[in-house]
């Protein structure tokens, strides 16, 4: 059985083709673009909100995208337990839409950062991480606003509910301040909701999926998801 992925295209999405390529070509699943002006999720099993600069991110990252017609359907889908992955700008949109807690501020350096980082898988209790054998993944980041912030109460909840999925770490897996690229509280790189069906992450697993590009740590997350959903 093939899964069906729906990749939302907002005006300004620019990692939509990358998400499509991974799901359709590398993973050999069904995949379809979902246009922001429509409401039809086309029977997708998994929704991906891709990276990019939706609506130019001119007001605040993700702030306008969440009002688009497709997001009404995505929010309903998520609230009824559908699996949603937000990558980078997609994570920012999930936060703006209130599907995940917290905000993403400008990077501490105030500059855009594009490089490979290491991620500690803090929770394997999600469909994306359940079947990943490694504990540390090397994945690329590329963002100007990836500095995760939330109040102490929210942080405590995230921690207590095992909602922190990825933390920036060093090669060995130590979560330390030197490995934190953007100033995120608790080195947070990705979180899930309490129900564990929504994952938001700043790093780009779709960029680390093709062996031609030299690193396939990212595809592990998709493989885990497929195994989880098809078993």
């Amino acid at each position, binding site marked *: 059985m093939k899964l069906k992925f729906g990749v939302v295209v907002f*005006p300004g999405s620019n990692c939509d083709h990358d998400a499509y390529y991974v799901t359709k070509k590398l993973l050999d699943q069904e995949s379809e673009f979902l246009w922001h002006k429509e409401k039809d999720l086309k029977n997708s099993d998994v929704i991906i909100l891709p990276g*990019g600069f939706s609506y130019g991110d001119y007001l605040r990252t993700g702030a306008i995208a969440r009002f688009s017609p497709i997001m009404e359907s995505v929010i309903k889908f998520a609230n009824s337990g559908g699996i949603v992955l937000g990558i980078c700008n997609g994570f920012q949109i999930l936060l703006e839409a209130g599907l995940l807690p917290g905000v993403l501020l400008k990077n501490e350096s105030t500059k*855009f950062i*594009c490089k490979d980082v290491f991620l500690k898988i803090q929770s394997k209790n999600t469909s994306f991480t359940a079947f990943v054998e490694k504990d540390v993944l090397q994945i690329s980041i*590329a963002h100007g606003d990836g500095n995760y912030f939330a109040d102490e109460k929210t942080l405590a909840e995230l921690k207590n509910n095992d909602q922190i999925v990825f933390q920036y770490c060093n090669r060995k897996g130590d979560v330390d301040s030197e490995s934190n690229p953007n100033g995120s509280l608790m080195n947070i790189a990705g979180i899930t909701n309490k129900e564990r069906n929504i994952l938001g992450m700043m790093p780009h697993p779709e*960029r680390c999926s093709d062996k*031609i*590009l030299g690193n396939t740590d990212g595809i592990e997350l998709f493989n885990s998801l497929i195994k989880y959903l098809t078993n």
Partner: protein
Amino acid sequence: MIEPAVDIQLAKEHGLTEEEFELICQKLGRVPNFTELGIFSVMWSEHCSYKNSIALLKTLPREGGRLLVGAGEENAGLVDIGDGLAVAFKIESHNHPSAVEPYQGAATGVGGILRDIFTMGARPIAVLNSLRFGSLKDPRTRFLFEHVVEGIADYGNCFGVPTVGGEVFFDDSYTDNPLVNAMAIGIVQKDRTASATAKGKGNPVMIVGSSTGRDGIHGATFASEEISEESESKRPSVQVGDPFTEKLLLEATLEIIKNDWIIGIQDMGAAGISCSTSEMSAKGDSGMFINLDKVPLREEGMSAYEIMLSESQERMLVVTKKEFEQNVKDTFLKWDLNCEYIGHVTDDKLITIFQNGEKQVEIAPYDLVLGGGAPVYHRETKEPEYLKELREFNALDLPEPECISEAFAQVFSSPNIVSKRWVYEQYDSMVRTNTIVGPGCDASVIYIKGTNKAISATTDCNGRYVYLNPYEGTKIAVAEAARNIVCSGAVPLAITNCLNFGNPYKPEMYWNFQKAVEGMGDACRFFDTPVTGGNVSFYNESPINAVYPTPVIGMIGLIEDIENITTSYFKNEGDYIFILGEDRDEIGGSEYLKIVHGLVKGDSPKMDMQIEKDLHTLVLELIGSKVINSAHDISEGGLACALAECCILNLDHPIGAELKIPIKQRADFTFFSESQSRIIVSVSPEDRNSFEEIAARSKVAFFAAGRTGGNSLKINDQFDFSTKRLIEIYYNTISKRMNVTI
């Protein structure tokens, strides 16, 4: 608004000469009105007309190889890469805007070159930048550097094209005139390209994309003057970029081209509507009727003059096939962009512009354009006096450094040598998931999905060499670009160029320009890399000085089999290190001479093109035979710096090396000479015999210099640097300098 009366004085204020004004009156058979004068002034500006360069540019090799579209024929050159695919690529300068408004200047430079690529129907797959600044010790230089990089980053990142490489060079000559050259590469199905032409009487002319505002009026004229104190007041001549709109424009444009709904399309860069209407008409041997009342405007009350000269960004002029007008409109509407019918194609070979029911302009497009009525000048040349003085240099007179390690530390920490990580980490170098080799290596490598191929790309030019010897220096720029391409495993295909020079009316400057073009032509013919086009930027000078003549070469190469992609750094412990090519102790114009002795003197290194070509053939054979693990070209900083880079370019896995290098005259010469046509390769022990067999068949000199391994770079017992220290210098120097509080 009452328009001023047109006379010679007003024409001069528009940057036209007396002769040019007379020529205009002659062509029109009358005195132009104010709007027409404005149009002629921008179209005949250096920036649009190439009037002082085109005669020489025509001597460059502009056909052959895999060229599908040659220089000047379309918005960008087009090269066949097989599999029914073609690559469009071009480099362009945005120097003047960046000197007064670095963020927007650089951003719109990227935007402009991207439009040149996608108006061809090609999807941009990579951007590179070639940047020149003054010394990082100067606070204003740091300001310019920081914001140019930010402008490039914000535009490319939002647009969604990876910025995969380029170069940054610092020298005092660029203090007042930073150079910002952006190169874009796109890919298109060979039979789905678009042309910048207007044909077919009655076909609709549409303006699409952003509304037209008062920004950028006379940008082209501004770019055709020297930078001065008054330049600050020309900041309104700098356009403002909107990468989000450009991203939408990209998608909509590619859709209408792919569906074959249009006759022609051209982006609006310099000289806005004036340029696109006249160039498209001239190319199609047609005319256009345009009603300016239909042009979407950002503010009310804009005059015909202002609308015709506006350089508002993210706009295109489209001539659609009549029957598909609605399809085109629907496409732009889908992407929330303007798409207005503003006129139609005519067969009277005239551009006729109406506003408020009155005819504002009537000009034959042919009279306006390059290759048509625009003037062509052959300027006076004179060999610069200063060259004699500069060449009076004997390297043996230099005091020999007491400690070669100390000299190395100085040279290796020059901002021209160290990693530009501080720059390229601000660029999204990976979006679209095709980047196999990103910034930091000799050349960047972009995968072509659906094939087994990849494109290699680089930009190169050492302005210091060109300053000391414009002919030889430009040959080196081409040869080094080709060497970088070869080191990545690719066969060089073609070049684009960005010629950054001073004032063409100064005979000594023009001599430099002429020699550079000769050198480029000779090198491109020799290496079979035709010139697909590019850009000339004159007037890069201030009252204090001109920039070093800087003919930047952007080159692409083709890797037929991605298995052959090669990178610069050592891969394994215990590999043999071979040095291909011969050192000639050339210290003139070197980074060592500048950094350690404070001199820019002597002659540039020599470029023997046959030796260079033999080297390329050998390295490609070695790569194809899979007997080398890395290949890195020896350039600025000489052998010592190149070896250090081989050790630490892979930050995840640094490897030391121990070498014995014969010293001919002096250790400092051997370590830092910048003799050309040399490449460092590493070879697994089991491949050593095959390597030597292949290399011995070639005419290229080579010797075994040592082996990889350990945690430090050791040369001749004279020199021992831990990879840790090398890394600290190489990767942190620029960020440390940039964190200085201004």
